[in-house]
């Protein structure tokens, strides 16, 4: 779906490059996570991929078509939900969706069904200025998927959402993906990235030092051990065992047999640990 080769970009000819020779591919129906601290170049990459910034060097192709040469029809197949909800505040949710729906000629979801799905149906005729941040985020999200885009760009889609709505949104994202939508997810939220993404890329200072699946990264960078939490004199104690031949480990077997085990966790690294380790930078 997306093929990027040696992409270089700077906002002005004399400025330092914001994107420094980056290359990656995103396959059909893949959820590709783009992680990195603020100012790393994530938004710039998204602007290049959505055809907004065309003055780049290298190659950026969508379905084998160079983005530089696209016309406005290209946007029939693209959906973008920006980090900050960009809605017409003096208009209702329904009016906002109807306006955007009128821009597309392709097959679309039914507005009523989308509003019901994200729990905004009862407030469909309320002006967006009276919406909470979470409601605006949900509306912003369904506006971006209204026209059943083949490629969807999501920037921090669960920001400001309570756990229930965050769960609901992630379920829709997975559903879209299983129906063939390719999703480019920009986020700081490592839990979301871990749960949703087939692969993630770490962006730091305009470069992509790491691209891999969360599972591979966690295995590569984690400890091959298991940590057992067990109850001892009304306290929780912990013991760690090597995963290698764990079944034959006498101490581990004794602990399992004789103690009241409360937790057992393998010690793979978290995505956040890996990000800090690889880039030397903490996500903000």
């Amino acid at each position, binding site marked *: 779906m997306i093929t990027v080769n040696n992409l270089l970009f700077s906002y002005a000819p004399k400025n330092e490059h914001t994107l420094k020779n980056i290359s990656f591919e995103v396959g059909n129906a893949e959820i590709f996570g783009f992680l990195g601290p603020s100012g790393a170049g994530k938004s710039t990459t998204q602007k290049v991929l959505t055809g907004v910034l065309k003055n780049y060097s290298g190659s950026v192709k969508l379905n084998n078509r160079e983005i530089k040469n696209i016309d406005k*029809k290209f946007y029939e197949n693209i959906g*973008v939900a*920006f980090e900050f909800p*960009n809605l017409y505040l003096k*208009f209702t949710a329904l009016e906002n969706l109807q306006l955007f729906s*009128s*821009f*597309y*000629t392709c097959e679309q979801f039914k507005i009523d069904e989308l509003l019901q799905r994200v729990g905004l149906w009862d407030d469909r005729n309320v002006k967006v200025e009276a919406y909470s941040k979470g409601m605006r985020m949900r509306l912003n999200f369904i506006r971006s998927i209204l026209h059943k885009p083949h490629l969807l760009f999501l920037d921090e889609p669960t920001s400001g959402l309570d756990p229930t709505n965050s769960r609901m949104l992630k379920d829709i994202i997975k559903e879209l993906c299983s129906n063939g939508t390719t999703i480019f997810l920009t986020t700081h939220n490592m839990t979301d990235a871990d749960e949703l993404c087939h692969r993630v890329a770490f962006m730091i200072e305009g470069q992509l030092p790491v691209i891999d699946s969360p599972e591979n990264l966690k295995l590569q960078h984690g400890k091959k051990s298991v940590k057992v939490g067990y109850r001892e004199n009304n306290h929780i104690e912990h013991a760690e065992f090597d995963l290698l031949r764990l079944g034959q480990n006498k101490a581990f077997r004794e602990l399992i047999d004789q103690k009241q085990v409360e937790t057992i966790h393998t010690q793979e690294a978290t995505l956040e640990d890996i990000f800090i380790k690889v880039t030397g930078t903490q996500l903000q």
Partner: protein
Amino acid sequence: MKTPNSQISNTSKLLTLIKFDVKSQIRQGFYLVYALVSLLYIIILFNIPFPARSSVTAYLILSDTSIIGITFMGALVLLEKQQNTLQSLFVTPVKLSQYLWSKAISLTLLALLASVLIAFIPGGLSHNWPLTLVAVGLSSLFFSFVGLGISAGAQSLNDYLAGIMLGGLIAGAPLVLFFYAPLVSLVFPINNVTDLLFTNSLSFSQARTAVNCTFLVIWILLAYRYATRQFNKHIINK
């Protein structure tokens, strides 16, 4: 290559945007403000005897309703910048040209409506209404595009006000020429509008009307190009 279908779709997108912009302007209170302003002008004009009423009407339209575009555009665009709606609009099939024309046409509709009330209820310019409407329509389109260009680069309302003061000075200065070299001065848009509005009260000339309209159309296209460049530079490619 454009197909008839895409043409229809482009026209329908433009009409949808115009309708939405008019609705938005009503909700922002622009129409209410102009209803009150027009009412005030109408009361003043009813108290001025003819033939002075015609000249005062032309002056009010020249100095106010025909430049509604530049007065209100800053508020409209800065609000959209603040609400971040522009970035989401430009990643849809909507073209920048459709956005710009919609803004200019919608404010021109307001300018025409206000001018109709001011010119025709007290009767100051009702004897040559087509020319008055043409003058207001073309002038409003020109000033709307100038307003769009200035607002694209403005970061705040103060920036915009400074921009339109400078723009107003540049656009208005050639009016001096109108009194010394009327014919030569017709290359400037402010003089074209002045000539069209005041011709109503004096003598009508087809040739002069054609010259004024031609120059205004050229100025509208130049202002449109300026607005397009400013939007690409300050908003789209930022």
